[in-house]
């Protein structure tokens, strides 16, 4: 046996590497390698019909600046994020307070709030599609009964994006509620008793004691909600296909169209770089959060 293999420290290092190797190989092959390749391919134009790819430098990035559809998808995505994130977090917190308040039938309440989480987005979007359908959809029937004029919810540029936001909020709020519930149950009741002795009002207790104590959870949920806002596009396939006139298109949906409908994967790579940029921003928050979690232990 060579002397190095008799050294226990070396042996432990080799063991560790062997244990890690399979997982690392997969993550490298399907996360790091494609991420790096996205960057490289964003400088190339795909060769058509078997021709080699052609280096075009920053051309794709220059085109980004003039591409109206990209600008629209980007603005939509920012609007989508600024709609879904605060609404779903606010509702999630409200739901957790209500479920945790010892009201009648609280397990049924929790079930109702949580159930959208386990349903496939693509399936529930079909149900929402019917709600939004002009003339005979549920929403229009209600408006018709009230004598209001008809609205083409998904077919008008002004309402398509808000409709898509509503579906996303409905899907995510119950999921985030779970994390708030877990956090609420960690708060000792003695805190409430102490606050009561001090004469704090209910509102004051929630605003100054409970919500600050939920901050780590809010941060965790915030990062997840941000990632979701740039990742969740399934419902667009059913509801609007990004339309009308790209009024509800989001970045990842546009990447899909460019890469797999028009097969311009070079430009698709440049678009993916923009998306990765946003995810990297969210990741800075996440790393800070994970570090703090580890220190608490």
């Amino acid at each position, binding site marked *: 046996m060579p002397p190095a293999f008799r050294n226990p420290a070396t042996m432990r290092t080799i063991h560790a590497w062997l244990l890690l190797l399979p997982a690392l190989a997969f993550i490298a092959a399907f*996360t790091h390698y494609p991420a790096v390749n996205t960057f490289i391919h964003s400088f190339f134009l795909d060769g058509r019909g078997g021709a080699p790819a052609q280096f075009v430098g920053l051309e794709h990035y220059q085109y980004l600046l003039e591409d109206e559809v990209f600008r629209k998808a980007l603005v939509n995505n920012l609007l989508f994020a600024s709609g879904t994130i605060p609404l779903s977090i606010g509702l999630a917190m409200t739901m957790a307070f209500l479920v945790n308040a010892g009201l009648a039938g609280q397990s049924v309440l929790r079930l109702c709030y949580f159930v959208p989480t386990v349903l496939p987005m693509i399936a529930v979007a079909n149900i929402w599609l019917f709600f939004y359908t002009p003339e005979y959809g549920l929403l229009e029937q209600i408006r018709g009964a009230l004598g209001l004029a008809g609205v083409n919810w998904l077919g008008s540029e002004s309402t398509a994006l808000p409709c898509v936001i509503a579906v996303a909020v409905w899907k995510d709020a119950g999921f985030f509620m779970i994390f708030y519930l877990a956090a609420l149950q960690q708060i000792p009741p003695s805190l409430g008793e102490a606050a009561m002795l001090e004469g704090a009002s209910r509102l004051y207790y929630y605003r100054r004691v409970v919500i600050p104590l939920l901050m780590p959870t809010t941060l965790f949920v915030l990062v997840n909600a941000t*990632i979701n806002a740039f990742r969740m596009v399934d419902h667009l396939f059913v509801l609007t296909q990004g339309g009308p006139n790209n009024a509800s298109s989001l970045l990842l949906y546009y990447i899909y169209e460019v890469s797999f409908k028009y097969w311009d994967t070079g430009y698709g790579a440049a678009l993916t770089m923009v998306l990765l940029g946003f995810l990297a921003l969210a990741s800075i928050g996440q790393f800070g959060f994970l570090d703090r979690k580890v220190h608490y232990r």
Partner: protein
Amino acid sequence: MSQTNIYDSRGLARVLDTAAAWTLAVLWALPLLYAVWTAFHPSEFSTRFTLAAPLTLDNFRAAWDAAPFARYLVNTVLLVTLVLSGQLVLCTLAAYAFAKYDFPGKGILFALVLMQLMIMPDVLVVENYRTMSAIGVLDSTLAIGLPYMASAFGIFLLRQTFKSIPKELDEAAAVEGASTLQILWKVYVPLGKPVYLAYALVSVSYHWNNFLWPLIVTNTTNSRPLTVGLQVFSSTEQGVDWSIITAATLMTSGPLLIGFLLFQRQFVQSFMRAGIK
């Protein structure tokens, strides 16, 4: 599950809270309740709500006959099984190394793994499609599953669990002459059971529901999962009546939904556990 809180509302405030809670609950359950109504009644009752409406299973029969849902179901079950078994093996090995070994470069490797939490395979579809095409596995269950086999989330979750297991236990096992893998299998895996269950539920529901990547990488009935099959069915059969599409929608979500209703407690607690670790 909740303890009584001194600040729980009383009197009129409590009535208002209850009303708000139930209004929200009805709003949240409405799409599902509506889908159940439409799917189990003839199509002329899809917007007429009357107790006199007759119940029927015809919509389910029509949907089942119109598209190969049985095949889609088999594909989905194969997919979630493949992904979950891959994840359990790979994540257990990696998590053990990160939790119990000290070696040069550990910090950097762990950071590299965690990168996957942000840059998920979901957004790298263009390049992963290229890879699947290069290795010749396009349009297969394997192609849908490969990018998800090693999960940073699973590694992180299991590493936290393994770290909390006292070292004396594996020292004792080592004295008995157990090898590294035996210690892992006989000591760590059994102690991590609740976390494995939590992770499994989260993983299965994620991959049962996943859509974009399977849509891109499959193009025949041989490999399409339920989500993609449903989309193909409902977008090509737009003329078909609404009740049939709703029945198909329920069939797609059915097995997972029934599983959720039966094991509600475990589901909710698993999602909680997976989130707070």
